[in-house]
């Protein structure tokens, strides 16, 4: 696996321990993206909130603050909305930007 531009991370990619964490995060990210897509597709907003919540808390620690911030926005939207199905377009655009951000790390161009 090739890693994207080192400056994209808030951790030091040249430090073995940091590099290990970055690699780990990227390796499990596809699975999370799948869960996000599946939860959104199935209107399973509780699961969506849970994955977003976990990403928000963990991503910055692995060197991915942008993913953390994007996941945080999604979580916030889900928490502030009484009935998420009424906000489906807002949620869709947030899910899409989170997923494409994650994909940019999974498949660096």
């Amino acid at each position, binding site marked *: 696996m090739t890693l994207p531009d080192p400056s994209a991370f808030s951790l030091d990619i040249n430090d073995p*321990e940091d590099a*290990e*964490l970055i690699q*780990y*995060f990227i390796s*499990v990210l596809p699975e999370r993206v799948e869960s996000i897509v599946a939860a959104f597709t199935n209107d399973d907003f509780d699961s969506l909130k*849970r994955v977003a*919540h*976990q*990403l*928000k*808390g*963990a*991503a*910055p*620690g*692995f060197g991915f*603050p942008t993913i*953390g911030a994007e996941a945080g926005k999604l979580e916030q939207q889900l928490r502030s909305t009484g009935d998420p199905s009424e906000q489906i377009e807002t949620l869709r655009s947030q899910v899409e930007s989170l997923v494409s951000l994650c994909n940019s790390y999974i498949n660096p161009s």
Partner: protein
Amino acid sequence: MSESLIHSDSGSSPTVLLIDDSQFVHRLLDARLRDESIELRSAADGRRGVELAREDPPALILLDLDMPVMDGFEALRELKDDPRTRDIPVIVLSGLNSSQDKVAAFDLGAVDFVTKPFELTELRARVRSSLRMYALLQMLAQKAQIDGLSELYNRQYFDTSLKGECERSMRHGQALSIAMIDIDHFKSINDTYGHPAGDSVISGVAKMITKQCRSIDTACRYGGEEFAIILPETGPVQAVQLCERIRVACEQLRWSRHPSRTVTVSIGIVGIGAGEGFSATPEAWVEAADRNLYSAKQAGRNRVKGTGIDGNTIDLAQAG
């Protein structure tokens, strides 16, 4: 029993239990706390975490709030309700920076609150600080159970411990013995050589007791010149043998300042064999042992008198 009852646990590193449903957090803390001298254990939900904490209480718990099965608040409540886990410090980890959650967590007994994403250096510092506090509290708790002069357990610890052992013996039909030990003519030692000499006799006899006791025994200073030993899973015959060794050790002890003066002890023992199923209150056990101590004194001191709790005398020939 070790020479000193106060041990720092320096041999093994403290256990930290991480309760969080996110694999990410386990992976991250596992890497980031690797250089701390701790052993990190994990649970993925509150229920499992509380179970693990009860089975083998850790020195610190890192607890996530938002979890399936049992959330962090519920887990915290259960931890604080259980005497086995009540005193373990808990640092709450939360993805929500909400004052309401913080207040609720502190009210439930959390010692600290860390918001995710964590600042790792800060988390490490907080972990260290909580572990340090816990070690000091444990040392204090242990010191509060120990008699300063003899370094044996104190009377209060004896009372609590005896109650537990009596109940256990009754419930499971296990053998149990207790011994009351009194230094002979202690008043005359004090009057003749002064109180500092009396103190060194107390600490010297305590050392002889400690030396003969096994790790399962609880040796205490009962008061003044009187000591007590709880001998779990030990019938009266075996207890008499052990106490006879204490009696001989004291008699043979030579006091550097007063080599000609011999210090002896009298010992009263009462016990029950395994499966004999006798029920008696802790007070009754102590009274019975005291009666035997009294007859040992009456019979000329420097001797061991033991009976079953039912009153059958154990003689040394039989014990021998």
